[in-house]
């Protein structure tokens, strides 16, 4: 039955794995990167097993009950006294619900939450119930101003502060949200949760409401199908664990020559084999891009009406028309000419052009630490804008990895 616990971590407080469909367990096997996979054949029934003790009254009930419901719902990363999390519930000082659409392709916030303003506010009240001392914020971008207004009108006075941020990549990242919303510098290299800031995406916030008020376990995700590779760009609601090819195959423009990327074109992973990859609990976007090998005659001399660029080198920057997206390099790799584009776009204000040269020459030492290499948040913008087509971000990552303090093996105490 969907919502049934199919796996449980060891220990007294541990995470649960819920079945996302009703059906029969066919196989339990190892999946990639050492994780385990449970294969369940669906019986086609849409029904799910409600979470115990959940209901419309639960939201105003004992915090302990609310926490128990959330810990049983399959939503991960919410500190409760029943589930493992980085910090204890009493240490949560700030809660930010993140609805900023600042990537290249984004799921529509108004589609996901536009008709659910009341539920979103209810989710805030539920979280307020278990984190009574925390400060609550809702981060949105200027594209959904009307929605922000509705939330403000619906929310009880003083509960939530709504922030309308500029939809500029990577504003949706917690490293960028914190300085703007809380007005304090981000300790780069750490997760926000470890110092008391819980960042929840808008889908998970609604899932918290559904779990506590409706008793619905977190068994499905709304996933946007984005990019020019799909015949229509739509949002689908799919059960977590659904094989991706079941969702996309009938909707692709062509069977071959497309690249499928999860969540973000700038930072997301390629899905080389959609037939054996499931929709994960964090999947919100599947992007299909043409693998473009032909670039036409004299591509560097074209007006570039649909060519995106940080520079104003193409006519595209003057016209408000859609840009084309493909996986071509758009030029040959050349030596760095220090054009300074990477510095200009770097959201954490380090100097990628200098850092990547140090790494390339093997000069990996404390100078890189001094120049702030650990502030890098892997947003990949420096590689994106590079005039010389150098993978600047990968070189910086390499430098960071080499500088990491090697773990000192701890000798087991002998009995």
């Amino acid at each position: 039955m969907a919502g049934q616990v199919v796996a449980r971590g060891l220990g007294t407080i541990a995470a649960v794995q819920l079945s996302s469909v009703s059906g029969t367990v066919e196989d339990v096997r190892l999946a990639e990167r050492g994780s385990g996979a449970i294969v369940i054949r669906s019986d086609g029934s849409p029904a799910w097993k409600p979470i115990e003790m959940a209901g419309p009254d639960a939201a105003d009930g004992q915090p302990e009950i609310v926490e128990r419901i959330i810990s049983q719902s399959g939503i991960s990363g919410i500190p409760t006294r029943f589930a493992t999390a980085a910090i204890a519930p009493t240490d949560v000082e700030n809660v930010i619900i993140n609805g900023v659409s600042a990537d290249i392709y984004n799921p529509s916030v108004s589609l996901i939450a536009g008709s659910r303003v009341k539920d979103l506010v209810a989710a805030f009240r539920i979280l307020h119930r278990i984190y009574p001392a925390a400060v609550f914020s809702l981060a949105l971008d200027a594209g959904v101003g009307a929605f922000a207004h509705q939330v403000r009108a619906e929310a009880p006075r003083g509960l939530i502060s709504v922030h309308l941020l500029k939809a500029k990549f990577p504003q949706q990242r917690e490293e960028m949200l914190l300085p703007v919303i809380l007005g304090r510098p981000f300790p780069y290299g750490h997760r926000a949760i470890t110092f008391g800031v819980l960042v929840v995406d808008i889908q998970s916030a609604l899932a918290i409401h559904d779990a506590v008020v409706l008793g619905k376990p977190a068994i499905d995700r709304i996933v946007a199908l984005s990019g020019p590779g799909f015949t229509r760009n739509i949002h689908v609601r799919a059960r977590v664990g659904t094989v991706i090819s079941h969702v996309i195959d009938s909707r692709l423009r062509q069977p071959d020559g497309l690249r499928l990327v999860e969540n973000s074109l700038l930072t997301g992973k390629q899905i080389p084999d959609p037939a054996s990859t499931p929709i994960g609990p964090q999947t919100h976007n599947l992007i299909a891009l043409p693998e473009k090998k032909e670039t036409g005659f004299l591509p560097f001399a074209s007006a570039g009406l649909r060519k995106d660029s940080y520079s104003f080198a193409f006519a595209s920057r003057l016209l408000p028309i859609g840009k084309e997206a493909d996986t071509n390099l758009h030029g040959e790799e050349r030596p760095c000419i220090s054009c300074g584009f990477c510095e200009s776009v770097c959201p954490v204000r380090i100097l990628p052009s200098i850092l990547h040269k140090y790494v390339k020459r093997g000069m990996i030492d404390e100078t890189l630490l001094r120049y702030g290499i650990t502030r890098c948040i892997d947003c990949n913008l420096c590689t994106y804008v590079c005039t010389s087509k150098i993978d600047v971000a990968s070189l910086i990552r390499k430098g960071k990895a080499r500088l990491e303090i090697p773990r000192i093996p701890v000798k087991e105490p002998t009995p």
Partner: protein
Amino acid sequence: MNGTTLLRRLGTAKPLGRLAVIFTTLEGILFGTKTLTSGAPHILDHIEIKRYMALVIAALIPSTVAAIVYFGWYALAMIVTSYLCGGIVEVAFAVVRKKDIEEGFLVTGLIFPLVLPPTTPLWVVAVGVAFGVFFGKEVFGGTGKNIFNPALVGRLFVTIAFPEMLSASWRAPFTDAITSATPLNLIRAGQALPPLRDLLLGLTPGSMGELFRIGVIAGGLFLLATRVSNWRVPFAYLAAVAVFSAVGNALAPLKFAPPQIQLLTGGLLFGAFFMATDPVTSPVTRAGKFAAGILLGIFTVLIRSFSGYSEGVMFSIILMNTFTPLIDHIVLSLKYRPVTG
């Protein structure tokens, strides 16, 4: 067989040996790249070095056309000579190093004849550009590794090697009369200057590309607007020249020409917009760019006012190139304190 497969085959043809690099470069120019991204980021900006350099050349079109209009086909012959001889050096290095031919040369090959007087013999153009590309760029390891602006290295070399040809004889547009006096020489001699209109249109003796100053300014602003060149260096440079010459002129009017004359004579505008902005040889840091611009301004005004030369832009930029690593080093060590603890 279409063009792209033909060039592909030539580019991998064994009998051609190392010369095959010419065809791979040509294929890249004509048909773009076929390489795809190999991971995140899955998409890349459309800007590339070819587009970048093409925009610099586009910005130089007004100056180039004006040079040809003012000085006739001889100006064109100088440009062709520069491209040919510089091109041979560039291609030879690419072949020896088994690397793609680098597009930066296309800019050097055009800027170099534009900073020469229109009376320069073609063989001097040839020697100068070959010297500039060879000693100004290739010996440092090619594009991106050079310390000095290659066009200026060539210009400096011919200035020192052939002084009588490069600084004694000048020619005004539309005339055949050889004169020894550019407006900067006139200032030194304390003589009357041509009207501002003539300076703006470039109807005075001077180097070929610097004369049509309206076109130079338009091209420079175009580069700033496209973000190909950064506004900090030219802004700081021109502002510094204006400020220092104004102060100097107030204190010693006989030594320092007033700001409006300084800005509109010689190669200042051309140098500020097209050579001081060279990203490779100017500082990377923002503060460094301002510092370099101010240094340039001081150097230029001082050289123009006190040295044996009437023009100081070339020397100033070469001098600034020398200080570039130091400026960046100072800025970085001030900005990033040592990690303690």
